[in-house]
């Protein structure tokens, strides 16, 4: 029986060397929090966009109605 010369190294993956995987993980790990934060920000912004533009449009529509009403009242004032 042949003894494994490097028992603590990860198993090789297809197309890569055993030594490359931990090195890559070490390089990528610091990027993860930033990526997660970016995705969280995007989700939050998209959630806000699902509601607030419609609310703003509705508010603006209300303002237009209010303006029409005010303009009619202003015109109705009779100054003699």
């Amino acid at each position, binding site marked *: 029986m042949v003894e494994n010369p490097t028992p603590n190294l990860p198993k090789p993956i297809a197309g890569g060397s055993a030594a*490359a995987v931990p*090195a*890559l993980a070490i*390089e*990528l790990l610091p*990027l993860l929090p*930033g*990526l997660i934060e*970016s*995705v969280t*920000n*995007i989700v939050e*912004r*998209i959630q*806000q*966009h699902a509601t*607030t*533009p419609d609310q*703003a*449009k509705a*508010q*603006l529509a209300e*303002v*237009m109605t*209010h*303006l*029409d*009403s*005010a*303009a009619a*009242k*202003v*015109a*109705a*004032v*009779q*100054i*003699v």
Partner: protein
Amino acid sequence: MTRMMTTASRIAGVLALVVALTGASCSTMGTNKALVVSGETIAGIGDQFAALGGVYTKQCTPQISNPAFVSFCKSFKEYGPKFQTAYPLAVQTFKTAAAANDTAAAQGAEKTILQLATELTAIGGQALVTLGGK
């Protein structure tokens, strides 16, 4: 390894682009809110004019009911037609600006009406003083 880092950079780039685009869209929200505030201000001033017009109709037409209102009636009679001419123009300017998402033009319409509103407040003050003194 380099290829993996390039992929990570691409992902980060795409995310940054998405954040930038959503951020740009969100700045449109600020525009809408500014338009809402300007529009409400213009509409509110119109309402104030109409309310004061009600006082004028009651106290000044067909004739001045109380000598204390002489000054108010005279001032409003001079000022009212100016406001009635300017107001629809400001409303139209605001609507055009709002349709174009042009906050600056909408605020220009608001400014015009605010200038007229200063005089309106002074005339309203005359009526209030008179009513308060009755």
